[in-house]
């Protein structure tokens, strides 16, 4: 754009929010003399309809081609004023906001002089940049209507259900051989007669027969290219070695010589290398754990339906989707060996192990017996792995453990009323509907609550008996309880391969390793990467209801993209000056989104930015050794002009 800049500057009083601290008159006088400034107006509320009119009139009357609005933060009204420019017939990117409220009047209200100086200095900076702004065009592209969901737990299933019901095609991938995630392993869910796997079963009913949903178990994502609306995904499916002919007769399990710890029973029992993860699992087929299988072929020989095939190979599959929902879930915190006696004494269990044991389908048929004896005194220690109670604990609250602990304590009290139960806690957070009643009922049933300050000491005596010692906050005394069983209410932690997944899909994470939302409050199920949505515990601890909710929410957010034929992104992307690019490749390795490739044209090699993939961070621009890579809206010349204007004396 070669025309001479003609800048209109519109200064907002924001009632008294700005005008109360800033001498608007003085600012107006100052700004009038800045280069390229043709019109300066001030008004009580520039964002109001009459305020917007003033801008539109100015554009018409003075033939303005750049607008500076000096008002609140651009996060408040940049959008509003961009629309004003469109209505006035200008390109919306010819707007620059000077933030004279949040960055000036509100923080420098003690000195009118200082606030006034800062206001016109900030406007000077904005005017300098405005004079170098260029008209830009939004980037549009076609949207593929399919969705990839990573993770087949309740959040992923919930999202799949919503999308399939709306008629969108879903690829649901799960790294384990069965769907249902952590929920499938839970016992009775509080306030219901359902068990974890019943909840999963209900969801599965609505999912597995829907022709819009393609389920891939034993499958992991290995690569993503493209971007919002057009992702190319590569996944790899590990062989199950057992096909649909399997009728679950169980002959294979009988002959399999390999025994390993059963992760679906949290290590309480052993399973074979060929196994059914749990009763009622989907898909309802046996599976061979090829890491532990010795290839002895006993199962192949014995299978009456020839359903076992050890020759199957991993298979790579390419999927084209418009959106990705990450519902990769969590893992329970696993205490270190020796932490609260865990792994040292058979009388120390995690809450999940206890819950499995209380399940009537458990190896003990629901009987609570430790080394064959029914415990008389049970101590629950809460917040294990959470709230920083130990050096390797996570800093957050895992949300579901309080209610879950109390629920299990009540189950025990129901079945074995004589048991003495102590719940040692740092804090009780029974925040969900009905949970507070559980807490009160626990009190009525004489379950004793005690509050520790420092993590309790679990002393395993030589005779195998256990004493739990801690300083009780309420009575301000050292307390020692002798326990037949200690239950560790462990929290949640990010799944172990989350770093691998998030690096592939390009999603940030917080210090604890959970994935980061685009905005904690306003965009809780969207990743900062366009077209990627987050569901369930992958963003942090949630209970089942919350996880199902967030699955539906992520699906709904994805739908807002998928229902469009074309998607739009802001054009503040990187751009190469083709003529002078030296093809040094530095930018290619800097781009976190793989948006830059070196392309060859006849003899000429140049870097090329895919504007649909570029997210506009500008890291490549700063790294470009020759300065031919630039970013629309943040070009070197524009930023330099701001530096100069800020320092002009």
């Amino acid at each position, binding site marked *: 754009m070669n025309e001479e800049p003609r800048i209109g500057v519109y200064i907002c009083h924001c009632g008294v929010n700005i005008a109360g601290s800033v001498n608007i008159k*003085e600012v107006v006088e*100052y700004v009038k003399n800045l280069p390229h400034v043709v019109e300066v107006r001030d008004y009580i509320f520039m964002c109001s309809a009459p305020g917007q009119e003033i801008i539109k009139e100015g554009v018409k009357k003075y033939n303005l081609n750049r607008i500076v609005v000096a008002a609140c*933060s*651009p*996060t408040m009204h940049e959008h509003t004023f961009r629309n004003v420019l469109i209505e006035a017939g200008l390109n919306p990117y010819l707007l620059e906001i000077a*933030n004279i*409220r*949040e*960055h*000036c009047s*509100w*923080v*420098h*209200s*003690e*000195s009118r*002089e*200082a*606030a*006034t*100086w*800062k206001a*016109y*200095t*900030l406007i000077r*900076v904005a005017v300098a940049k405005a004079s170098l702004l260029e008209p830009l065009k939004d980037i549009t592209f076609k949207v593929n209507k399919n969705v990839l969901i990573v993770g087949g737990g309740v959040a992923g299933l919930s999202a799949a259900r919503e999308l399939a019901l709306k008629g969108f095609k879903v690829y649901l991938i799960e790294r384990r051989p069965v769907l249902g995630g952590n929920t499938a392993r839970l016992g009775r869910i509080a306030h219901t007669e359902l068990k974890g796997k019943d909840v999963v079963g209900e969801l599965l009913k609505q999912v597995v027969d829907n022709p819009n949903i393609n389920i891939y178990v034993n499958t992991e994502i290995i690569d993503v290219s493209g971007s919002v609306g057009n992702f190319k995904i590569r996944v790899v499916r590990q062989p199950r070695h057992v096909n649909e002919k399997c009728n679950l007769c169980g002959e294979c399990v009988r002959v399999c010589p390999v025994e390993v710890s059963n992760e679906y029973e949290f290590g309480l029992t052993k399973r074979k290398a060929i196994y059914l993860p749990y009763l009622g699992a989907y898909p309802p087929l046996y599976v061979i754990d090829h890491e532990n299988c010795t290839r002895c072929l006993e199962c192949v020989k014995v299978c009456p339906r020839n359903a076992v095939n050890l020759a199957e190979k991993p298979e790579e599959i390419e999927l084209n989707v418009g959106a990705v929902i990450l519902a990769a879930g969590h893992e329970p915190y696993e205490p270190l060996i020796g932490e609260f006696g865990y792994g040292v004494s058979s009388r120390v269990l995690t809450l999940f192990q206890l819950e499995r044991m209380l399940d009537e389908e458990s190896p003990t048929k629901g009987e609570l017996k430790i080394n064959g004896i029914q415990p008389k005194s049970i101590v629950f220690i809460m917040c294990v792995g959470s709230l920083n109670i130990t050096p390797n604990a996570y800093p957050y609250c895992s949300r579901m453990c309080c209610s879950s602990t109390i629920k299990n304590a009540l189950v025990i009290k129901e079945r074995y009323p004589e048991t003495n139960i102590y719940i040692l806690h740092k804090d009780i957070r029974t925040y969900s509907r009905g949970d507070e009643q559980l807490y009160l009922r626990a009190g009525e049933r004489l379950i004793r609550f005690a509050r520790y300050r420092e993590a309790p000491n679990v002393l395993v005596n030589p005779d195998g008996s256990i004493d739990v010692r801690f300083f009780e906050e309420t009575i301000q005394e050292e307390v020692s309880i002798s326990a037949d069983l200690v239950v560790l209410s462990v929290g949640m932690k990010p799944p172990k391969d989350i770093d691998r997944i998030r690096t592939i899909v*390009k*999603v*940030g*994470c*917080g*210090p604890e390793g959970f994935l*980061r939302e685009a905005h904690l409050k306003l965009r809780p199920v969207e990743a*900062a990467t366009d077209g990627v949505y987050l569901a369930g515990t992958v963003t942090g601890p949630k209970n089942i209801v919350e996880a199902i909710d967030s699955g539906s929410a992520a699906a709904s957010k994805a739908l807002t993209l998928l229902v469009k034929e074309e998607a739009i992104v802001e054009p*503040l992307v990187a751009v190469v000056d083709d003529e002078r690019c030296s093809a040094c490749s530095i930018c290619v390795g*800097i781009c*976190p989104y793989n948006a830059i490739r070196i392309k060859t044209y006849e003899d000429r090699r140049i870097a090329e930015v895919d504007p649909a993939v570029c*997210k*506009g*961070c*500008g*890291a490549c*621009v*700063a*790294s470009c050794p020759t300065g031919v890579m630039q*970013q629309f809206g*943040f070009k*070197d010349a524009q*930023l*330099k002009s*701001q*530096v*100069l204007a*800020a*320092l002009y*004396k």
Partner: protein
Amino acid sequence: MSQDLEPRIVVFACNWCSYAALDLAGVSRMKYPPNFLVIKVMCSGRVDPQFILEAFRRGADGVLVAGCHPGDCHYIEGNIKALRRMTLLRRVLEGFGIEKERFRLEWISASEAEKFVRVANEMYQEIKSLGPLKLQETV
């Protein structure tokens, strides 16, 4: 006309964390010296050491680059790129004889308005006591 304020400190703030933290400082009516002039970039990874050298050249008495905490970057690791560059830039600034107090790289999340205010106050005090940065011009 109001007096020019000294010292003058240029802030490069990323859109998602640090710029938002400065907004929050405003919303919370916190107070900090007016000497900090913010230039918004989308990511601290956009900040080119050239801009900082240019700022010192043009009379900045201090420069603050503020981005999201490591791991929190909106663009995955733009802040890490800033960290790499600023680590080397710091040694170059030392080579030029610019006191280390005049240049800072800080991680300031959107909720850390207080941290920005603390950093601003510290920088202001330190730079005030160093006095203005005077470059030698020609002969």
